[in-house]
């Protein structure tokens, strides 16, 4: 049985970029800033592509929700070996306040339409760090879920997944169809090389809107304020042990 795999790839601010908060505290500066695919989604894409190479999967479809530039992220996924992409166009205010619940609904809908057997997602995005999409997608579809996957193996009609949990590893077996979220140590994603990116330009990207899928993306939250984490206070140098003890007592540490 060849499976169809759906992978999610979110476009986020590149991991190496220093994040700056907008002066009006409405969000972070995104204009003219380098974006790339969420690293955890890259791991998910890699795993899906490997499934295809091992002939476990017949087709790999990548989905990205966001503005026009999300297509670049999809292009990267296509260059890594994904067969085709679906760009769910969400822009403006809707995009700024797009929540995991909306993305889950979109993914669930696409998974049904495309008759997918496995949904592979990154465990969380490095921008909002919600870590909710995979769980909610599984719940919406009423499919089993295996989150924080560290290893995935197919055993006749089921998937055996090694999960990273607090203080150890857990092995679970899930029936297909299932939702899986990738943890950091699942694999080492390949690099999307220039020749492959060129070749990927020939691969199809379908553009849809949430409306086409029957999903409402009305904002559910309101951002009140976005602020920098508190800066570390400067330390002081002390002359000798006695002053050190006195100072420590002063701040109530001893």
């Amino acid at each position, binding site marked *: 049985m060849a499976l169809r795999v759906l992978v999610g790839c979110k476009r986020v601010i590149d*991991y*190496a970029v220093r994040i700056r908060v907008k002066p009006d505290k409405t969000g972070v500066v995104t204009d003219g800033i380098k974006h790339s695919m969420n*690293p955890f989604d890259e791991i998910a894409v890699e795993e899906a592509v490997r499934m295809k190479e091992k002939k476990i999967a017949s087709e790999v479809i990548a989905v990205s929700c966001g503005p026009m530039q999300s297509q670049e992220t999809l292009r990267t996924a296509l260059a890594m070996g994904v067969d085709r992409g679906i760009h769910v166009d969400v822009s403006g205010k809707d995009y700024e306040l797009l929540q995991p619940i909306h993305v889950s609904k979109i993914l669930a809908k696409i998974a049904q339409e495309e008759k997918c057997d496995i949904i592979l997602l990154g465990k969380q995005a*490095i921008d909002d760090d919600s870590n909710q999409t995979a769980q909610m997608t599984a719940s919406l579809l009423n499919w089993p879920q295996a989150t924080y996957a560290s290893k995935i193996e197919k055993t006749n009609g089921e998937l055996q997944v090694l999960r990273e949990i607090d203080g150890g590893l857990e092995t679970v077996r899930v029936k297909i169809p299932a939702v899986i979220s990738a943890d*950091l140590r699942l694999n*080492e*994603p*390949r*690099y999307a*090389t*220039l*020749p492959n990116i060129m070749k990927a330009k020939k691969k199809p990207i379908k553009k849809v809107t949430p409306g086409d899928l029957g999903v409402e993306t009305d904002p559910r939250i309101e951002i009140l304020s976005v602020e920098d984490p508190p800066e570390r206070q400067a330390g002081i140098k002390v002359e000798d042990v006695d002053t050190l003890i006195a100072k420590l007592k002063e701040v109530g540490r001893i």
Partner: protein
Amino acid sequence: MNSSQRGKVIQLYKNLLFLGREYPQGYEYFRDRLKKAFLKNKGVTDQKEIQMLLARGEYVIKEIEALYMLRKYRTLKQRYYAEKDNR
């Protein structure tokens, strides 16, 4: 140098330039050094030697890819797994 090798060398240069965009010390730094490295061997005419240099270029590509991967992995590990273990 025959024409197919010429194409390969140009392609190698382009691929390396593309990789240089993410270089930690910046694109300029990478590009300057890359150009110097290519210019150093511009007089090479022996086909076998060119073949060897091309192979070295491919090796460098693999090394840079590995460098980027490790850098990303380390950053993520520091950000998300710092307290869990000290591996």
